[in-house]
């Protein structure tokens, strides 16, 4: 079989890089482990370069039609690489202070990243399943890396159990789909579902199981129970990685399956998705109101955001057409924008956390003690809340646009109400930082260089995309599957 090596170049580079990281970790003496970080960084940067070389190319298909490199795949792979770079930069000082082994951490992170890259190119249930596992298996370990911390242990356990449970449910659904269509190729599934007069009930049942399986990965209600505990217990950069990259990987798998394979059944699953999306955002936003820990707050906020990202699926049309295109593009654009604001907020949490603490009370008066940090945190939080001209506003606009284009006004209104609820808790943190007298926290927080870089990149992106939303929108529209 002919393999198109150009198409798999990024994955090959990354695989090479993670092998090197593993070997370097073995041969380096303990006091030189700091070198692994630059090696990993170079590996991801190399992957990114290989990806950029692929950008703009016509679609390539290889490995027996299972691996497709189109603009959708390239865009999301670039996003995953950027998220990984930000996580790497965020981790270095954190790991040193927490006494976590650098080598294994980066190795596992790169493994997980590899899974994300392959899932974006997978157009078959089998590679989607194995890629998803490649994303998750290293992530369990990463979540548990603060080994002597009971919370971290528990984070890993919860994440692990929920994840394989969801995999099992998803696989059962996939097996039924295989049974009724005789194929695992996404495009073929769509064709055969349309052609063969199968009973609707079994198709719906299998789609239901698959969606439930993905519901865990993307933390949709009522499968979100693991999220706050896992995020809080994990090392904070891992929480950032999970909330951005891992969740996006879940969405990528879900979007591919729903839009390529199952759009013919859209009229059946649309109401179900609508209900899940609304419940997810409402639950996330309401519970976020009560949180006192910044990582848990961000966790619940990320549940809320997942609801927004899911919402456009609720307007998908059986016959395809521009509505589907808009819906897909809206979700993708939201994912692109969400990555930067979430990463930014987590970077600030990491930067401040070591010295100042992770409770929202600890942020009291930060505006006076470390004005710069407080201002960028405000930028990220208000962006998450959707206040223009920050990027999150554009993301919400795209969703609203898609939903109204699909004539689902009530969904738009429900999301609008949610946006207002969400503002409460974002503003709560901002209020703490600025409206309260400087507490007894540290004065002038020292931010390591690499963290400064992640914060700066995120801030610039949030502002830039906020003023020129087309940067994200254009990319998203170019890279749709439908």
């Amino acid at each position, binding site marked *: 079989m002919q393999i198109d090596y150009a198409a798999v170049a990024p994955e090959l580079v990354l695989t090479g890089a993670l092998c090197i990281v593993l070997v370097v970790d073995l041969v380096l003496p303990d006091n030189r482990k700091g070198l692994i970080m630059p090696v990993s960084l170079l590996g991801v940067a190399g992957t990114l370069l290989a990806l950029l070389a692929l950008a703009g190319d016509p679609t390539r298909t290889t490995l027996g039609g299972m691996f497709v490199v189109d603009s959708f795949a390239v865009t999301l792979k670039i996003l995953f690489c950027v998220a990984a770079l930000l996580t790497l930069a965020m981790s270095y000082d954190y790991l040193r202070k927490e006494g976590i082994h650098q080598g294994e951490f980066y190795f596992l992170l790169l493994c997980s990243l590899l899974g994300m890259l392959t899932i974006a190119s997978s157009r078959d249930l089998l590679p989607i399943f194995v890629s998803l596992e490649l994303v998750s298996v290293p992530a369990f370990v990463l979540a548990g890396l603060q080994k002597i911390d009971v919370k971290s242990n528990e984070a890993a356990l919860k994440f692990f159990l929920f994840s394989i449970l969801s995999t099992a449910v998803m696989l059962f659904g996939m097996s039924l789909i295989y049974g009724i269509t005789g194929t695992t190729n996404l495009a073929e599934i769509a064709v055969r579902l349309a052609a063969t007069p199968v009973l609707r009930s079994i198709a719906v049942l299998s789609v239901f199981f698959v969606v439930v399986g993905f519901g865990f990965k993307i933390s949709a209600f009522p499968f979100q129970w693991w999220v706050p505990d896992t995020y809080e217990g994990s090392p904070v950069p891992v929480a950032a990685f999970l909330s951005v990259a891992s969740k996006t990987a879940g969405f990528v798998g879900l979007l591919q399956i729903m839009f390529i394979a199952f759009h013919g059944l859209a009229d059946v699953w649309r109401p179900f998705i609508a209900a899940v999306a609304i419940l997810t955002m409402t639950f996330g936003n309401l519970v976020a109101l009560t949180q006192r820990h910044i990582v848990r707050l961000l966790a619940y906020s990320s549940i809320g955001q997942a609801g927004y990202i899911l919402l456009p699926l609720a307007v998908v049309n059986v016959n395809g057409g521009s509505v589907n295109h808009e819906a897909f593009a809206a979700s993708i654009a939201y994912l692109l924008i969400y990555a930067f604001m979430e990463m930014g907020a987590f970077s600030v949490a990491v930067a401040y956390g070591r010295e100042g603490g992770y409770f929202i009370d600890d942020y009291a008066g930060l505006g006076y003690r470390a004005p710069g940090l407080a201002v960028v945190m405000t930028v990220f939080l208000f962006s998450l809340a959707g206040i*223009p001209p920050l990027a999150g506003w554009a993301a919400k*606009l795209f969703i609203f646009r898609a939903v*109204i284009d699909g004539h689902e006004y009530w969904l738009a209104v429900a999301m609008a109400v949610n946006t*207002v609820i969400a*503002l409460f808790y974002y503003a709560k943190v901002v209020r703490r930082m600025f*409206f309260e007298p400087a507490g007894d926290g540290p004065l002038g927080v020292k931010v390591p260089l690499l963290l400064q870089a992640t914060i700066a990149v995120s801030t610039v992106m949030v502002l830039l995309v906020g003023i020129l939303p*087309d940067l994200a929108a254009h990319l998203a529209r170019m890279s749709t599957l439908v």
Partner: protein
Amino acid sequence: MDFLAHWGLTLSVFLPIVGAALIAFTPKEQEKTIKFLSLAFTFLPLVVGVLLLRVYHIGMTGMQLETNRSWIPSIGARYHVGIDGISLPLLELTLLVTFLCAIYSLKWLPEPHNPKGFLALMLLLETGMAGTFIALDLVLFFIFWELVLVPMYFMIGLWGGPRREYAAIKFFLYTLFGSVFMLLGFLALYFRASPHTFDVLQLQRIGPSLPSGIQNLIFLGMGIGFAIKVPMWPFHTWLPDAHTEAPTVGSVLLAAILLKMGTYGFLRISIPIMPHAARTYAPLIGALAVIAIVYAALNCLAQTDLKRLIAFSSVGHMGFVMLGIATLTQIGVNAAVFGMVAHGVITGMLFFIAGSIHERYHTREIPQLGGMALRLPILGGLLAFTAIASLGLPGLAGFWGEVLALLSSYNPLSALSSHTFRVYMVAGGIGTVLTAGYLLWMIQRVNLGKVPAQWEGKKLVDVQPLEMVAWAPLLLLTLGLGLFPRLIFDVTTHSVIGLTKLLGG
């Protein structure tokens, strides 16, 4: 001149944000530089704004000085700005009042002392406010509209009175709530229009032919957003809190400009694009406006806090503006625009005075003032003058807006029930009497009467030169607009005629 015609508006709107960025990068200790920057970057836009008057053709209907550039092609939003007779006065008012606020802030800054943050936010606010009045694209309009939110939130929350946090979050949530629905309305409009567009001018051509059910729904969605900002009764409850707690400059900007964004939204977007819905809702808007007038006046009678009293009076004055708009007639809309400018000038001035009184007495409780005319004759005189202007005395600015709004409701658009509007007129008339009542009573209690014991023999400083500089333009405008209303009407009439034509008036 050519450059000015194409980019003058953009320049005047975005200069302040450049100033805000410069201030952000100036070290906190260099207060002089910061103050200078804030002065310069409010003065320059004003200069541009005045120069714009030279290229603006007063006799023309329709938009002028337009700029229309590609911005977010993928969703069809464009950078489209321009002004006509309705937006011009409001834009100029914005540029002027912010500059005056910058002058005032040279000496009087609210506690906690942080000129850097305060002035940067003020400049940011100016961009948002001015931008709202020139935006001709719904997405652009929305951005500017929301840009106002955060600076005002911080202004109230950081530098406000004792209940500042409550007031700040209330202001934020109310406005955000409204604006989210406004955005949904914009999007619905976009998708209903064919071809899909966010362009206000194009929508004015397409919108009127939309089915009436759709118009009504979209009008309602947007209306919530605008009504909260105006604020119309019963959405007004954020206003007294925000006004009372905000620092002086915040109150001035809030009263003078922010509130006009809502009424402007009705005039620029809702009514011309959805004339059918405008006719449907006009009686309701009129009713709410009249309720606001009477309700505000009654509330004012019960207030003891000077700022709160002025805040409630704003609700009433904006009621007159909305009543004028609701008639959908040329006179009514003209009166509304005039009323907006007049209210901006007069109430802005009143809040300045209230701030200065608070500077001196450290209280705004009316019972604890008293006898101010004796102790501080100039300040007392100015208060009396402005309050009288506010109650609508002929010869001063407040008169024209209110009287014409009442007059126009005697004879509203032919499609509306004139009986209903005559009832409104009578009720509004009662409102004017009540307004005169509480303002005169306020003047009597503050200026006359006995000096409270704690101020006996204590030295109180009367109006200072810097205050005079900051206030003089407003005082002159109060008098000037009252004596020569054509200053405004000449500018607005042509555009208003264009607007009312769309309504079949």
